[in-house]
């Protein structure tokens, strides 16, 4: 069994799931930002407990900045409120809106993906970044064909589209985060500007 994790950096980035952990790790590396520890809090229902546990973890007193990233899903407003409820339960500062840090010890900020007003998730953001990739035309035709042949589409189209897109790459079968390390997401795309700005302010 690996040894339990501790707090290893004064800046904490809390993310939802392994894909987000690996993706944002790759982006931080690309941006050459150091001193930020990424922690995967699991599913959306686990954030509240994770925040409580983090606040009593050894070394938390030295944390100066806490950033939380979650998928919007179907209601970005409700997602923001849910994060705020978790912060409240852990007695942490609560920002008034996304992308803005609230002062305190630690400073706290929230980012919702793909953005504060649109339903979706990290996959949605990644698909936006490759919208003009020629392979995406094939991806859309694939799902049109699928609907004609099978009579239905997958329940989560963004996840399905992303997997279809990644299957078109030189090395197929990678997950979203692994694809980030492979350079399959164009970091120079303006789609990622907000994410980069958020990471820089942590």
């Amino acid at each position, binding site marked *: 069994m690996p040894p339990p994790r501790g707090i290893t950096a004064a800046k904490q980035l809390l993310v939802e799931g392994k894909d987000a952990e690996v993706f944002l790790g790759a982006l931080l590396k690309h941006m050459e930002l150091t001193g930020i520890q990424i*922690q995967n*809090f*699991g599913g959306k229902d686990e954030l509240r*407990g994770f925040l409580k546990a*983090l606040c009593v*973890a*050894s070394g938390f007193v030295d944390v100066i900045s806490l950033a939380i990233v979650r998928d919007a899903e179907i209601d970005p407003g409700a997602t923001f409120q849910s994060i705020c409820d978790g912060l409240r339960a852990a007695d942490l500062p609560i920002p008034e809106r996304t992308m803005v840090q609230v002062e305190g010890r630690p400073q706290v900020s929230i980012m919702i993906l793909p953005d504060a007003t649109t339903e979706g998730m990290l996959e949605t953001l990644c698909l936006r970044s490759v919208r003009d990739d020629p392979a995406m035309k094939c991806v859309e035709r694939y799902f049109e064909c699928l609907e004609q042949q099978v009579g239905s589409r997958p329940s989560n189209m963004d996840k399905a589209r992303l997997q279809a897109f990644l299957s078109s790459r030189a090395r197929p079968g990678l997950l979203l985060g692994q694809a980030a390390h492979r350079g399959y997401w164009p970091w120079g795309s303006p789609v990622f500007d907000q994410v980069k700005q958020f990471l820089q302010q942590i």
Partner: protein
Amino acid sequence: MFTAISIKNFRCFEEFLIEPTDRVNLIAGANNVGKTALLEAVFLLLGTGNIGLVVKISAFRGVDEIKGDLASIRELLWNPLFFSFDNKRTIQIRGVSDNETEHGIEIQLVPGTSVRLFPGDTSTPEAGDISGNAEPTMQLRYIKPSGETHRVNMVIDQSGIRGEPISLEPAVPGFFLAARHRTTHQEDAERFGKLDVTTDPDKAYNLLKALKTVEPRLKRLATIVSGGIPMIHGDIGLARMIPLSLMGDGLGRLTSLLLTIANASNGVVLIDEIENGLHHSILCKIWQAVHEAAHRFNTQVFATTHSFECVRAAHQAFEASEDYDFRLHRLDRVDDKIRATTYDQEALAAAIKADMEVR
């Protein structure tokens, strides 16, 4: 049952508070952060003025033999009790109970009430100075919930170590299971006997059922005198009963733990390094048994551990029960002061799931 304990100027604690405490409390933390010292503080508090406990806690730390001149003995027994070995401070240990009453003890060195005139260590009757040879005394003041106080002095002189006047009877029973000391066969047998002899159904305890969770072959328990020593024996289906101590350290340790808890009804049991001698695979069952016994006898438990597996097993055992009356308290040094961080069920569950360090 204590809900909060505060400590000032005792051992490594200059000023310390632990709250809220629950029925079962597990204390974790790095080496030399005060885990054992916290148990010692609670032990002294439970003594309600029994100054002899000062000698006992030294023995738990390995100070078994006390020899030498009076100054050396006082140095050995007294000074280590004080924060930074500063014997001019006053030790204060206070406990708040679940009925919101508070009681406490204070320990300080006071000038002696007698002067040794002759023979003296450094002076002779012919010496020309005017100073005397007053022997210091350790004074323990017990402050009852009513506010009344009771004073006891520990005197160390040529005739030995004594407390005067005699201490009050403790209000509740208290036991300390030190890491380096194991309960003897006789102690276990006596405690087993006290449970066995009662006809009060409220005090009856099925120790066999609890031990079967660790050794399912056990069919019967009995105290048998062997070589003049009373020992608890178990029937595991062999041609004869055998001492529990020969059935592995885990069973012996669990037996001692449960018997101590059962004999401390409405009191407190303090257990240092609870995981010693216990394989990780049985820790959850051990905690279940400890929980049931603590509930059954309304006993509060404070235990220390270095083991993440022990913490996780305790959490799992309490999560599976109806009452999660368990707290993990982690001690840390922050800016040279020792601080307790207490995990509730939700925080501990999340920390364990996320593989966070909790010790």
